[in-house]
C-alpha cells in the first residue's frame, strides 16, 4: 500500500526480540517495511518474525551477538540477500547494569560498552556502504534520557548512552552529504523487561520501583509502542530534514532539574 509510511523500505532492528525493538518491528512491518530482526534471543526473535508474517508482513529473524563483527556482517548480508537492500537501521540492542563506579566490575563495564556503543560502530560500518550505494538511508540509535543527564548507580550505562548521543552527531556530520540521516532517541523509563530488571539489580520491590519511575510530568512510564512511533517518525520521510538530533521521549522527565 503506497499510503503506508515505510512502503518499499527494508529495516534492520537490533534487539528486536523484545521491548522497544519488538514494538518497532511490529510497527514498521505494519507500515509496509520488510523487517530483519536481529537478537541473541532465538525463541523470542523467531516469535516476533512469525507474528509479523501471520499478519501479512515480511520479516526474518537472524540470531546474532551484535558485539561480534562476524555476527554483524552475517546479519547484514542475510538481510540484503533476503530483501535486496537496507534503508533503515535501528541500533536498539542495549543492556543496563545498575552499579556505581566502585561497585561495577570491569567485565560488566566492558559488556555495557560493547552492547550499547560498539555494536553501533560494528553495524554502521556494515550498513553505511549499502546506504551510500542506495543514495540514502536513516539510522536510528537508541540512546537514553540518561545519555543527556545522569542517574544514580548506572555509571557504565550513562557513559555508554552519552557516547551514543555524540556518536550519532558525529556520524550525522560525516554522512549527511550522502543523504544518510543519523538520529537517536532518548527514551525515559519505558515498560519493558529491562526496566523491571533494574528493580531486581537494585534490590527494590518492583511495584515501588515502577511507581518511582512514573514520577514525571505525564505521571506514568512509557509504552514500547510510544518509542516505536518516535522511531517511525525518524525512519520515515516525514523527518527528511532531521539529522544529528536526540529525540527525547520521556513524558517530561528531563524538562526540569529534578
Amino acid at each position, binding site marked *: 500500500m503506497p499510503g503506508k509510511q515505510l512502503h518499499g523500505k527494508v529495516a534492520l532492528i537490533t534487539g528486536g526480540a523484545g521491548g522497544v525493538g519488538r514494538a518497532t518491528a511490529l510497527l514498521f512491518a505494519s507500515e509496509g517495511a520488510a523487517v530483519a530482526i536481529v537478537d541473541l534471543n532465538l525463541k523470542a526473535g523467531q516469535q516476533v518474525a512469525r507474528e509479523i508474517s501471520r499478519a501479512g508482513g515480511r520479516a526474518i529473524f537472524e540470531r546474532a551477538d551484535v558485539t561480534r563483527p562476524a555476527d554483524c556482517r552475517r546479519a547484514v548480508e542475510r538481510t540484503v540477500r533476503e530483501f535486496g537492500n537496507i534503508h533503515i537501521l535501528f541500533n536498539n540492542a542495549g543492556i543496563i547494569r545498575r552499579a556505581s563506579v566502585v561497585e561495577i566490575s570491569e567485565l560488566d563495564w566492558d559488556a555495557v560498552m560493547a552492547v550499547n556503543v560498539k555494536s553501533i560502530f560494528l553495524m554502521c560500518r556494515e550498513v553505511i556502504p549499502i546506504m551510500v550505494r542506495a543514495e540514502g538511508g536513516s539510522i536510528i540509535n537508541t540512546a537514553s534520557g540518561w545519555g543527556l543527564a545522569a542517574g544514580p548507580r548506572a555509571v557504565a550505562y550513562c557513559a555508554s548512552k552519552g557516547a551514543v548521543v555524540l556518536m550519532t552527531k558525529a556520524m550525522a556530520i560525516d554522512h549527511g*552529504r550522502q543523504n544518510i540521516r543519523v538520529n537517536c532517541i532518548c527514551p525515559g523509563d519505558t515498560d519493558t523487561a529491562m526496566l523491571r530488571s533494574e528493580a531486581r539489580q537494585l534490590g527494590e520491590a518492583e511495584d515501588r520501583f515502577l511507581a518511582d519511575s512514573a514520577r514525571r510530568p*505525564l505521571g506514568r512510564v512509557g509504552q514500547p509502542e*510510544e518509542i516505536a512511533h518516535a522511531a517511525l517518525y525518524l525512519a520515515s520521510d516525514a523527518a527528511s*530534514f*532531521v539529522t*544529528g538530533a536526540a529525540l*527525547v521521549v520521556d513524558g517530561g522527565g528531563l524538562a526540569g532539574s529534578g
Partner: protein
Amino acid sequence: MRLEHKVALITGGTSGIGEATAVLFAKEGAKVTITGRNENRGHAVAERITNDGGKAIFIRSDVRRAEECRRAVDETLRVFSRLDILFNNAGVFHPHTILDCTEEEWDLQMDINLKGTFLMSKAALPHMIERRRGVIINNSSGWGIAGGDAAVAYCASKGGVVLLTKAMAIDHGPQGIRVNALCPGDVDTPMLPEDARLRGLKWQDYLAGCTNRPLGRIGTTDEIAKAALFLASDDSSFMTGAALVVDGGGLAD
C-alpha cells in the same frame, strides 16, 4: 488521517511554516483556525484549505495583545466547539548585535516570539485543562539552543521559548497536556531573504552559508510542518517538555 476530529489553532498561519502546517493539519482531518496580522494572506490560506475540502477560518489577531489572544480562542471554541492543538508559531526576526538593536526592535521580538506564546497559552489552557487533554507546540529555533551572529533579541526570545516550553510541560503534564518546542534550522520562508536583505548580503552568498550543514541544503516549510504534525498527533503521546531539532544536522557540530 492522523488529526481527525481535532481542532488546531495556528498563530502566524498566514505564511511560511504556519501556512504549510495549517494546510497539512487540514489535510490530516483537523479543523484549523489561522491567526495573524495580515488579513489578505490569512483569508487566502483559509480559502485554499476550504477549496481543498478542509475546514478553516482566519481570525485577525495580534499575539502581543491578551484580549486578541482570548478572542482568537473564544472564536475558535464558538465555531469548532473545542481546541485540541495550539501551535504558537508567530515570530519575527531582526538581525542585530546588542549594540545596534534598538529597544523597539528588542521589544517587538520578545513580545511576538516569547510573550505571544505566553499569552496564547494562557488563553487556551483553561479549556484544555477542563477537558484534561491538549497539545501545545511552540516554534522556537536552532538559535534557541545555540547562539547565532547578530541575532541577540531573536536568540533571547527563542531560548526563552525552549525553557517556557519545559516549564509549562512540568506544570500541565499532570493535567494531560503535552507541551513541546520545535527548533527548525534555516527554512525556505520569506524570513530568509528578508534577513539577507537586512544584512546587506547577496542572496546567493547568504544561501551558501545557510546550506553549509550536513544535509547540504535548507529545509522546506513542509518538513517543519511534518515535525509539527508528529508533535500534534498521538504518535508522540509520551513526549513532553522536549525540543525537537529539525535542522539538517546544523546543530550536530
